[in-house]
């Protein structure tokens, strides 16, 4: 067991994981129509490889890009391409091009879907190529292409691989269930990722509110060398890359555009590892993921294995629908998730959860002026002073917004969570960042 160092700041919101933590993963029903967005990741969007009317099979690549920082997309169903048109992106809130496929219900596998081998039998280059081809991205929510992550530029050496099983977001239990039910896949995927990145030492980081998952992973690790478990005290936002590195290794990633690579670390989500192991074993690219569907308003909160491209409305229908009128639909967890204005957005690679809040839970409390209590300063895991960033944003003093390091904000939501004056601090900081960005683009 590894001694953890912890990190400064953070909060302890009620986790509410009891709703779904005991619910085994079950397969969601097949979508009759899959909406595959061509931009599901951080980086360059994909170009469609199919035309309207084409017949596609499960696992067939339907979108790719020549850019280095990108990830291809694949068809989750077999059937005809009905159209290629813009569709709502649940994280961006605007429409992006999507390939819409009408399923024929046959689920015919594409010829490319064949077992690839195991972590031991494949070389570093082979694994990297498989990752690139399978369209794997970080499944924790950030959706950074995994192929890029495991291919460090020349001159940077990586000494430690962190497998992120912290799942610090309240409500979400997808990673928890994956570690519990598919520990062997997690370990297999971790080994493959380490091989791809050329790292010898790996640490699987799990928060102490998932004791059963720790046991399951420990069991799967028997006889495996180079991988260890670190049990971390429950502490939001421990699952954020930078905070995890600080908590486990005591290292600090340089400010943006600094990456974990700069301190010799690669961090990957347990779900990503499990997905890679699945690809190695079956050959299926990333066409489904585990989604926690939860909240007081959901009739039957569950952990579902959902095909990418399934509409939120159909996923919720799979969980028995809603109790009464919903107040808020959030993709992701309550701290960093994105509120949706429609249920007709599709599941993307980064959809870790769907949280439905009742109108009562979604009610905003009326706030007061900032009373300078300093709680946001205390709670900020990056040591910013959110109240000043907000004040300067409100006053339009953009140089001061930058001087108070608004760009270092990871938007974890701790400041706004603790604020007794109920000021939407994260929103203000985002506004300040956006304004600064547009000024940079326009000004220089």
């Amino acid at each position, binding site marked *: 067991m590894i001694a953890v160092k912890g990190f400064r700041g953070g*909060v302890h*919101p*009620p986790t509410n994981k009891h709703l779904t933590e005991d619910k085994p993963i079950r397969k969601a029903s097949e979508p009759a129509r899959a909406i595959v967005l061509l931009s599901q990741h951080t980086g360059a969007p994909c170009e469609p490889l199919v035309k309207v009317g084409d017949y596609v099979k499960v696992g067939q690549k339907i979108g790719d890009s020549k850019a280095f920082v990108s990830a291809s997309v694949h068809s989750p169903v077999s059937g005809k391409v009905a159209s290629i048109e813009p569709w709502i992106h649940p994280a961006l809130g605007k429409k992006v091009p999507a390939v819409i496929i009408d399923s024929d219900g046959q689920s015919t596998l594409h010829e490319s879907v064949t077992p690839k081998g195991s972590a031991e039998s494949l070389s570093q280059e082979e694994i990297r190529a498989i990752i690139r081809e399978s369209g794997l991205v970080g499944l924790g929510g950030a959706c950074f292409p995994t192929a890029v992550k495991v291919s460090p530029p020349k001159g940077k050496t990586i000494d430690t691989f962190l497998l992120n099983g912290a799942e610090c977001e*309240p409500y979400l239990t997808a990673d928890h269930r994956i570690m519990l039910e598919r520990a062997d896949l997690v370990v297999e995927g971790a080994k493959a990722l380490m091989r791809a990145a050329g790292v010898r030492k790996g640490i699987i980081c799990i928060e102490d509110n998932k004791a059963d998952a720790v046991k399951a992973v420990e069991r799967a690790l028997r006889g495996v060398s180079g991988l260890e478990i670190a049990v971390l005290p429950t502490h939001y936002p421990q699952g954020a890359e*930078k905070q995890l590195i*600080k908590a486990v290794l005591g290292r*600090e*990633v*340089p*400010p943006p555009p*600094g990456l974990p690579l700069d301190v010799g670390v690669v961090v990957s989500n347990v779900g990503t590892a499990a997905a890679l192991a699945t690809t190695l074993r079956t050959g299926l690219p990333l066409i489904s993921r585990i989604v926690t569907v939860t909240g007081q308003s959901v009739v039957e909160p569950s952990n579902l294995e959902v095909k990418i491209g399934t509409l939120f409305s159909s996923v919720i229908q799979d969980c028995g629908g809603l109790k009464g*009128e919903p*107040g*808020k639909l*959030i993709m992701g967890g*309550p*701290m*960093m*998730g*994105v*509120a*949706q*204005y*429609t*249920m007709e957005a599709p599941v993307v690679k980064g959809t870790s959860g769907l*949280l439905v*809040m009742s*109108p009562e839970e*979604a009610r*905003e*409390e*009326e*706030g*007061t*002026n900032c*009373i*300078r*209590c*300093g709680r946001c*300063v205390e709670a900020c895991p*990056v*040591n*910013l*002073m959110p*109240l000043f960033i907000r004040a300067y944003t409100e006053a339009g003093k953009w140089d*001061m917004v930058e*001087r*108070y*390091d608004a760009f*270092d904000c990871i938007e974890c939501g701790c400041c*706004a*969570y*603790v604020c*007794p*004056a*109920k000021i*939407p601090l*994260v*929103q203000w900081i*985002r506004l300040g960042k956006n304004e600064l960005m547009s000024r940079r683009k326009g000004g220089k």
Partner: protein
Amino acid sequence: MLKVTSSPHIRAQENTRYLMRWVLIALAPSALYSVYLIGTNALSVILVSVLSCLGVEVIWHNLRDGKHVSRTWWELVFLLAIPLLGMVPALGAFVQWIECVAILVVLWFEREHRFDGSAAVTGLLLAMVLPPMIPWWVPFFGAILAIAIGKEIFGGLGYNVFNPALVARAALLISWPRYLTAGWFKPVVDASTSATPLVLFKNRLGAEVSAVYGPLLFSNTGGCIGEVSAFLLLLGGLVLAWKKVIHVEIPLAYLGTMAVFAALAHNDPIFHLLAGGAMLGAWFMATDYVTSPLTTKGRILFGVGCGFITMLLRLYGKAPEGVTYAILFMNMLTPLIDRSLRPRVYGHIAKPVRGGK
């Protein structure tokens, strides 16, 4: 209809009103005990002070926001006219109660106004730093000074530079010094002593008062309403620290610095911690969110500064007590402390100098 807001979508329970309520709860034992010991005089000072603060806030906010303007002007005239009743000989002794009832009536009319609780805290704190035998209109004007000049004129809650209660006390001290430096509560045990322990100390009677921890802790000593029992104040402060309402660094640094200073100056440190407004100042005045620094380092510096200036004034100043001016002085430095003692941002190598890169 789906509601769309920026993340986070959950908020902690605590709000501004909750924090203010806890400050009031923590002050309640001291206030009630002083009413028990001193009687109606203390009650009238506390009631007038708290109610006036609430009244001024309502009237100011209404006029500022242009709500019920004409009604509010009438309320203002009404409340300001009542002290004139004091001219009538038969009513002279009851004016304060009439004023209290009048304010309650006004507050009833304005019952939809949303109080954040800060005015009540200011009012109670102001009452705690006034002598109990003071004419009732002194806390009345003090409340106007505290809320109007001390707080609202800067932009209201969160924008004031100085602690409003202490601004009012300082202004009252300049305005009517003879009321503010006399009229102390007379201890029950030794009815002949009406001076405060710190006044006795100032007059070089230190030897006599040094061994009176008991009275200092549990009443029976001359002083302001809030100074009857250092023990209850300490208890209230510890409750606030336990509920994480206040940051414990400030009182610890404040009192610690005082004790060290006193010891180095060959004074009795415990006497200095228990006498006068040290406990009230350290636990309730210096910890005011708005006027104290935001970072741990800053708060320690703030507390040390307060303690140092307090002892400097007590030992070498003209007046016997220095808590008010020590805290007001450090309040002034708070923006400077906040700017210079910023926490090191995650991943940044060196601390940025003066807010720059």
